[in-house]
Structures are given as C-alpha cells and as structure tokens.
C-alpha cells in the first residue's frame, strides 16, 4: 500500500477543479466553439450529466471495496488479468494526456513569452519542476493546488470583469448554435474533457473514504463545469463564434483584448504567471497519477523509484507530435473524444463484474 498522506475536502476540491480546468487555458474553448458554434458554452453543461453519472459509477465501485483505490478495486472485482488491463488503460490515459498538455503548454510558452528559446529547454525545465514536486508527495500537490487555485480564480474573475465592455450578447445567438442534436451528441461525447476526475478514485484513501470523495467530487465537477461554460461564453461574447474558432489559445487572446487606460495595455503577461503555475500543477498531478498507478500495479510500497522512468516515458511521448497543431489535434480530436471509454466505461464494466460476482457495498469500520 502506498503511503500518500491525507488532505481535507477543501484541498481535494481545488485539486480536482484545477486538474479538470487546466485545458481551459489551452484549446478547450476553441473545440467547444467549433462543435457548438454560438452555443459552444452549453456543451460543458450538457457534459455534466454523463460526467456525474460516470463519477457515481466510480464511487459505487469504490464503495464495494472500502480502503482500496480504483486499481486494487479493479483487480479485486475482475481478477488480476482484467484488473491489470484496466489499470494499463488508466496508465496510458494519464501518460498520454500529461504528455500532450506538457507539449501544448511548452509550445504556448514559446509562442507567448520565449520565442527564441529552444522547445526542449522549455519542456525539460517545465517537467523538471513537476518531477521535484512529485517527489515531495501527493499531500504537497494538494496543498499547492490551494495556493495556486485562489489566484487562478481571482484571475478568471478579473478577466471576466475587465473584458466586459467588449461583450456583445448578440453573439450568443442563435441560442442553440449548430443545432440541438449536435449539442446533445457532443455534450455527451465531450464528457471526456473531465476524464481526470478518475484521479479521485486513485487517491480515495487520502481524501478519506468514498462518502467524502463523492461529496467533494460532485462539488468539483459542478465548479469545473461552471468555470468552463463561463469562460467559453465570455470568449463567444467577445469575439463571436466564427472568429473564436481561429484562435489556438482563445483565453490568451482574450486577455490581449484587456486595456485599462493608456498605461496598462499589455497585461496578458501578468496572467501567464498564473497559467504556468496551473500547467505545472497539471503535469505534476498527471505524472503522479501515472507513477502511482504503475506502483500499484507492481504492488510497490513506494512510488518514488518509478518517478524518473515515468518522467522519461512522458517526455518521450511529449516529443512525438510533430508540432503544436499535431498535439492539439491528438488531444482534442482523439483523446478528448474517446477517453470516456477508459475513465467511465471501464469502471462501469468492473462494477458490473463486481455486482455479478456478488460483491456488496461495504462500509469501513470506524
């Protein structure tokens, strides 16, 4: 059993919110607008239904195996072979998604602030900071998420307020954008955007049992969806849906529009500080998740010896896409379309196996 420390509901909530919302800084709003047009902001709201359902399935599965994470629960319910196949699925998901976010963030930093710096320097330094944090442990990640979340929230509120004079509510029409069918379909499929919520099932013992995980997870999902929908709507209201589709980094573009008098005209650089912190935390959590899954698969008592190897794998995967466009396409058009199969469908299958085998929900003795 891994020793991961304990943290409270406040830390858990912000940890999950940041893990789920980091993509807002990258191409997420653009994808939503491309799929839903002027109603792109509705897609995250529609996604809430499958995400909540999927999260309930994860918690139900964990309810059958108190004191165990989603990896041990899979092995316990479906046996070592199916359990390890499922764990490999989670592992691959976290490796690929961390690598893609790492690449996208590094490319964004290159575009935004360091155009002359070689990409490997940015990627390596970015990931090195994440590796240091992973070595310090999950408890540190949870506390760090609170430290980062509060300025992040402040920045989002600030952006929404400072850009308000650019709003044109007419851009939100037609209200149903590219049509209700498309909205519903993509809303369901794009629940993959919140696949990171499975992380709660991985660190359930640190959170404090399934009841606490469920309560905090639901809050985190609602907050993440609210922030996602709000940011997408603000982008649509500022640029209109056709124009917003053109931007790879719409939130960055949004901050470029902020002007406060003649003196403060290029305030976007200030936001980059917070964004980089959020990206670093995402990579830390992704690397931690991948390493912890692998350690659990090996029944190892400590994850730290696996960190360098896992870091190397993620770095290698991060350099596989040819350029930023390839990374964005891989992220938004493949991972974020099919990842629900791993994050929600696999736990459902394992839960069904557990129910068929006659496992009943248990409560941990106090």
């Amino acid at each position, binding site marked *: 059993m891994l020793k991961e420390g304990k943290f409270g509901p406040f*830390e858990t909530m912000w940890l999950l919110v940041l893990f789920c919302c980091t993509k807002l800084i990258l191409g997420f709003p653009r994808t939503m607008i491309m799929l839903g047009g002027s109603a792109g902001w509705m897609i995250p709201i529609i996604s809430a239904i499958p995400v909540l359902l999927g999260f309930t399935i994860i918690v139900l599965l964990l309810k059958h195996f108190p004191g165990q994470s989603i990896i041990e629960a899979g092995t316990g319910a479906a046996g070592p072979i199916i359990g390890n196949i499922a764990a490999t699925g989670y592992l691959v998901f976290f490796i690929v998604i961390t690598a893609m976010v790492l690449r996208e963030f590094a490319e964004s930093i290159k575009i935004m*602030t360091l155009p002359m710096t070689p990409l490997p320097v940015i990627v390596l330094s970015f990931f090195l900071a994440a590796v240091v944090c992973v070595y310090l442990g999950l408890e540190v990640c949870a506390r760090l998420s609170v430290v980062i979340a509060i300025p992040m929230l402040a920045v989002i509120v600030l952006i929404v307020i400072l850009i308000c004079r650019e709003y044109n509510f007419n851009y939100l029409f037609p209200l149903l954008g590219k049509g209700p069918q498309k909205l519903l379909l993509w809303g369901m499929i794009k629940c993959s955007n919140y696949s990171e919520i499975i992380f709660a099932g991985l660190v359930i013992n640190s959170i404090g049992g399934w009841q606490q995980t469920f309560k905090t997870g639901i809050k985190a999902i609602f907050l993440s969806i609210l922030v996602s929908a709000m940011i997408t709507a603000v982008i649509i209201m500022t640029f209109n849906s056709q124009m917003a589709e053109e931007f790879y980094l719409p939130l960055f573009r949004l901050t470029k529009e902020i002007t406060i008098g003649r003196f403060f005209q290029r305030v976007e*650089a200030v936001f980059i500080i917070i964004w980089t912190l959020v990206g670093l935390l995402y990579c830390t959590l992704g690397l931690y998740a991948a390493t912890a899954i692998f350690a659990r698969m090996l029944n190892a008592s400590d994850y730290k010896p696996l960190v360098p190897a896992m870091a190397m794998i993620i770095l290698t995967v991060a350099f596989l896409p040819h350029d930023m466009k390839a990374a964005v396409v891989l992220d938004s058009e493949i991972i974020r379309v099919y990842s629900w199969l791993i994050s929600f469908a696999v736990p459902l299958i394992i839960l069904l196996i557990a129910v068929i085998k006659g496992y009943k929900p248990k409560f941990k003795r106090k």
Partner: protein
Amino acid sequence: MDIINLVKKLLAFQEPEAENTFILVENEAETGHKNDEDATCDFLNGVDYKNTKISPNLTVNRKIIEKLFSVPENSDLVIKEFDIQSNTPLKAMAVFMDGLVDKAVLHYAVFEPLMLRGDHQSNHPDRLASNDGNSISIADYILQKLILVNQTKKKDTYGAVINAIIVGETALFIENACETIILETKGWKDRTIEQPLNEKTVRGPHEAFNENYRENIGLIRKTLPNHNLMNDTIYFGSEQKGFCGVLYLKNITNPSLVTEVKRRLSSIKTDYIPDSGLEQYIEDHPFMILPQTRVTERPDIVVSSLLEGRVAIIACNSPNAMIVPATFWSLLHAPDDIYFRFSFGTFLRVIRMLAMLFTLLLPGLYIAITNFHQEMIPTDLLFAIAGAREKIPFPTIIEVLLMELSFELIREAGIKIPGLIGPTLGIIGALILGQAAVAANIVSPILIIIVAITGIGSFAIPDYSMAFSFRLTRFFYIVAATVLGLYGIVLVAFINLALMCHMKSFGVPYLAPFTPRSKGGIKRLFRYPIWEQETTPDETNPIKRKRQPKISRGWTEKEPEGRKE
C-alpha cells in the same frame, strides 16, 4: 671522529636554530587517551568520578576536586577550608568559582552563620545532637539551622557537584558527611532589562529579554500570571553544561507537542551549543532556507504564543526566546498588528506581504522584463528605462548582481562596525556608492530604485531569519530570470511553494492555516477584530480551543444605564 666533526662544524653550513620551535602535534599517544570519552574531566586514572559517591573524608574530597578542576593551573576555582562553630569544631570546605558567585551572599548567608553562630554537640561522626536533643545528620542540621541561602539541595556524587560549581553555585563539603550541600549563590553582572533592539514597536511594552535566564522567566511570569504556566528545565551538552527552560501552558498546549519538544532537546549530545542557535539542533528541515522557529526578544510575543498553544524555549544566557511550532504566517506577524486596531493591523500585514514579494521578486522581475518581455512595459516607461540604460556597459544581470552584492556588503559592514558609525556608514556608503555608480554610468538610476525598494522590503519583514531567507532566495529568482525570464521566475516560485507546502515545524504544516485550511484561519491571516478571535489556532491542536465567548463584549448586549431612565 672528533676531528671529522670539527671539520664538518667549520666547513659545512649549519642552519641556525629557530627561535620559535613550537609545533602543534596530536598528543593522543602522549596522554594515552583511548577515546574521546576518556578525555573528559570526569575520568581520573580510569575512574568515572561522575557517578562516584562523595567521600566523608574532607582531604580526599579536596584532592579529587583539585584534580578534577586541575588546580592550581585553573586559577578561578576557590577552595576555602574553615571550621563550623560548635563545641567540637567541625571541619568544612566551600568550593566555588570566582566571578560566578555573589560574594555578599556567600559572606552573610554562608560563612558568617557557619563560622560564628554554630551551636551543636556531636555524639556521632556523621550525626549531631541539636539543642532540643534530637539526633540529625550534619548536612540536615546545617541546612535547617544555619544556612540562610534561599535555594539549597544535597548531592552525593562528584558529577552533580561539578555541574553545580560551574554554573555559579557553591559546594559545601563537611567532614564526615556523605553528602555535599549545594548553595544557590549565583551572582554575576548582567545587562539590565532594556528596549528591544530588533523588534521595536510603536505601542505595547518596551522591554526585552536579557542574558539572565531567571529574569527572562520572570518577565514572562510577570506578563502572564497563570498557575498553569509550566517551566521544565532540560539539560544538554557535555563540555558546556547548558540548559534551557521549556515553557507552556498546561491547560492549553497539546501534551504531545510538549513531549516532542522535550524529546528533541534532551537528545542533543554535543560539546557546545551556542545559546541563541539552539534551533539548529531541533528544527525539522535543517537544509531548508526558511526558518522553522520564531525567535523573539519580546516577552509579550512569547506570552501571546503560549496562549495560542505553542511552546517557548528559553536557553540559559540567551537574550532570545524560541517559539515552536512556527508557521510562515506567524513569522510575518508583528506585535503592532495586535496593539493597533484591526483595520491598521490588516493594512500592516498586507504591506508586509507586499514587502515580502518585493524582496523576493523585484530584481528578478526587472531582469525578466528588461531582457525578455519588453512588450509588458508600457511604451512611455519602456523609453525611460531604455534611455537610462543607454550608456550602461554591463548586461542587466551583472548590473543587478553588482548592486545587490554591494547592498549586502554595506548592510553587513553596518552591523559589524561598532557604535554610531555603523548606520552612518550604511547611509553614506549607500548614497555615495549609488550616486557614484550612476554618475560613472555603471548602473542605471532605475536599478538603484529597484535595489533600494528590495532592501527596504527586507527590512519591513519582522523576523530577521525570515528576511535573511528571502534575501538569499532572491538570488535564485535573479538567476532563473536571467536564464528563462518570467517563465524561469514561475518555475522557481513553483518549486519554492512546493517546498513550503512540504515543510513542517514540529508536526504543523508550514503554510497552515492557509493550506491545510483550518477553522478560523483566515481571521488570523488577516487581522480580524480582536473580539472576533474566539478560538486558539487550530493548527497547534490545543487542549482548550475557546479563548473568549461568541460575544466577548458583554456591554453590546446590555442596554446602557442612562437609557432606562
């Protein structure tokens, strides 16, 4: 042979004998010490005198004491033999360290009563018959009837006697007695209670600790008259017999915290502990730059910390008290925050946080913005900076390092130079250096402003160790900004924050109550009204949490007398 030697002496060159032939060599072989343990003064001829019982023979005792203290080489030890006044005079010997005892106490409370007022009859070598006919031991008789000293105790081993003598107590050996009387006769010159040197306040008490342990404890007891205030003495060290007092409030402080503090202190084994550097032996993360104990010279800070469920450690001869556990936020708080009204207190805390950010980030940000992100600077300001830097031959990093190091140099020299010249040198050095550097086009005037604000920011941080740690960490940010601009600063900040989240001080997370969040934490981060601070900090897990009821200002609930009329 003699002829050959004579020829050699006449013809061959002979080196003149060196005037100073002293060479410091290892003398382990000469003295025959087998190990370090044998080398201590507690061993004589292979006998461990530390635990050896006192001899009833005065001559034997004298010889042992002389050997243990290497008399007469050690000229400070005073051994005074005298007769205790009685029908059958009794031989006695007082041993004390010159300079550590109060001679008036020794004279009037020890020698005078013993030598002039003794009145007893001996019927047994070890026992006496007092005037009322009862038979008691010599030591007890002297303690009960003759000695006028306040604190006395009996010891029966040489180790305990030596420990007493070296801290200024007097050992009284009596012929035929198997115990030695230890008399509290400490008395040396101390600094009087003065104003705090490093923690000045506008309001509140203006008294600080000095080097007298007893006076320091007295200052705390005076400020906090509470029967639950405990003071446990812990001894440590081998060559230097040091001790410290562990102070806590029995009804508030978590007992496991007290146990842990005592465990760490009592486990210290070393020959010398600098009185004010004790924290280096007990802190959780010795390699972290940030301080993990709060060191203060103010009794009022100690008292407020004790009431919050913390533990104070006061080392002997130290003019500082150490408070544990310390959190990041507690090190940024100052007494004035509480003495002033809450609005001013909150403002002061915000200013201090800004000062912290300036100290840490300002030089790094200047480098990052001027070298990497010129687009961030508004156009007018950009022209001003570019104009100022036009004639500067150095890259920004050299310019910044030059000024920062000069500033540190002036600061260090200002502290070391005695008397009033120190601050004067600081001002003159900074002014002249800055002005000359700008005039010589070595640094830009904007950089002078940056360095000055950074320096002022570091002075605004109340804890000296904390300010020092920021001054040191600042250089990491400068290097990171030089290499990777703003992005580099964020990377270092991320690692810095992660390390801070990882740190603990005596089991309490360093960033508590911000993260992990605890009940009522926000009320202490920003200074809420004093009547709203109803509980002690949650992070110290105190036994008693409630400090005051929900409505502490009872008068707000009652109608004024005048209105009834």
